[in-house]
């Protein structure tokens, strides 16, 4: 009997090993999150202070850079909101019913249809870049929000189908079958039973679409110019135009990453569940 407590004691590592592992982790935080932290901090400096070496850690913060960055930030921010918002809503409208159909109606082809959706993500964007440019040019959609709304819908609808399929498969079948026997109409079933039960999943799926669309760059830089450039393109444009105003560029960049970072923080746990649940085994 005396060996049992000894064994459980061995289970937890010695305090020193524990603290050492913590130290490594905290160091990793400094290395990995440090650059983002420093970017945010640099936005509060004057331009002269931003270039001072050794880097100033104690300084009088100023809001001057953020205020002037806001001027050039508003336009692209609005563009991003419109493009990302519209494409995400369309993706959910198309993807949620599709996922419901695939998870609810027994059909031998369902699995392969879900798989087909996800294989579209494996196609390199390069393979459709030039024809999309030619099509949008022909339809006069270049430098309008529509070009990006359309391509982001194509990019993110498969993600909605994939993730919502995983969430809906976990729903108790009895509820839906009972409702079906009671003659509840299909769309009622979707809106009154399925959507309320998978709200958390829908939220995290929508957030993932927002992050992907917000950060997308290849299509954004190819299909927009001055009028409708979203934030990802604006950051690149500011980088080449204002590289010498490092403090102001930092402020602009910080503003540009706020939305995806906060959305990402909120959704990190759900995100992994949605991605892994179907893919393991």
């Amino acid at each position, binding site marked *: 009997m005396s060996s049992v407590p000894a064994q459980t004691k061995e289970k937890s590592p010695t305090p020193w090993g524990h603290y050492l592992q913590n130290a490594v982790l905290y160091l990793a935080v400094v290395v990995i999150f440090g650059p983002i932290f420093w970017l945010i901090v640099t936005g509060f400096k004057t331009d002269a202070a931003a270039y001072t070496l050794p880097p100033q850690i104690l300084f009088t913060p100023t809001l001057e850079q953020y205020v002037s960055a806001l001027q050039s930030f508003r336009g692209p921010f609005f563009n991003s909101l419109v493009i990302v918002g519209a494409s995400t809503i369309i993706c959910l409208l198309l993807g949620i019913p*599709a996922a419901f159909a695939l998870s609810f109606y027994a*059909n031998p082809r369902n699995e392969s249809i879900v798989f087909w*959706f996800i294989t579209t993500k494996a196609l390199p964007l390069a393979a459709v870049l030039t024809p999309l440019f030619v099509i949008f040019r022909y339809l006069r959609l270049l430098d309008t929000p529509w070009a990006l709304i359309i391509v982001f819908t194509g990019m993110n*609808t498969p993600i909605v189908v994939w993730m919502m399929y995983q969430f809906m498969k976990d729903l108790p079948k009895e509820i839906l079958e009972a409702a079906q026997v009671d003659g509840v109409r299909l769309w009622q079933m979707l809106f009154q039973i399925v959507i309320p039960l998978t709200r958390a999943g829908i939220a995290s799926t929508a957030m993932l679409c927002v992050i992907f669309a917000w950060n997308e760059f290849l299509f954004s830089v190819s299909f927009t110019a001055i009028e409708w450039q979203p934030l990802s393109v604006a950051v690149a444009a500011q980088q080449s135009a204002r590289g010498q105003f490092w403090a102001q560029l930092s402020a602009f960049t910080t503003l540009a990453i706020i939305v995806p970072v906060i959305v990402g923080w909120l959704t990190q746990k759900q995100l992994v569940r949605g991605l892994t649940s179907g893919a393991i085994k």
Partner: protein
Amino acid sequence: MEVSDRIPESANARGRASGPRKAPASAGRERRSLLYPGLIVVVIITQIPFLLTIYLSLQSWNIIRPDLGRRFVGLGNYTREIFSAEFGTILVQTLGLAAMSLALCSLIGLGLALLLNRDFFAKGLVQTLLVTPFFIMPTVTGLIWKNELFSPNFGLVTWFAGLVGLESFNPMAQYPLIMVSTMVAWQWEPLFMLVLLAGLSAIPEEEKEAARLDGCGRMGVFRHIELPHLLPYYRMVILLGSIFILQVFGEIYVGTAGGPGTSSMNLQYLTFQTGLVGWQVGAASAIGVATLVITIAILTTLLRTMNAVVREGA
């Protein structure tokens, strides 16, 4: 929306064969009315343009030189663009970039996941901060590397390198491909960490306990319990990571602009450069088709290999 209403009617004849669960005919129609709008939109946006890519790849067409016209050149674009030394070099760079980034992500992600799979002070905060790079725009990653960290004039790392005696330290110009790999690894390591952490926390405590009772040390537990458990998670995250890492673009565009020369370009960047900078629509389409074929070959090989590894490990 009109499309989606018509298709189910026309496809109704096949509905009986698909074996729906209850009232056959109406259920099949309902299933299609829900499924087809999404399916059709995705086919139109992602598949139809590719047919046009194949068509355009057989043409010689420079968009900003309408005087040259558009003419059929057969496989001319392929022989000129694909079987060239430049394409070969850039293909090797694409693979090297992906391999380096995936290796870094796999190792760092595993290390962090093992460290996070314990109880300690401020665990939630540490995990949240470590995940953050995944949500940053690729263009911002490029900007952080190019300006904040490695700028020859005011970069933090450059300054630090000067302190320890490294003169004319400018890795963005000297080792551009390696630097792009580090950007990609920074950006994608959180995904590996989160997925592997999910794998680690799914291991039942009793299994590890049993291994310890059998005399396994920390390494033994990792080798015999944790690693075999993680293999399917590795397979999933490597496949997912490869899909995105093979087509890195924003980091290169801002960080190195593919240069110096073409030394940090990948196939995605080459397509963009040829089509949207050089306006050679035909040549860019041929490169796009080649990129697609190569990507599918790589992903299929990768999946086969990993399936074999997972089977052996299980």
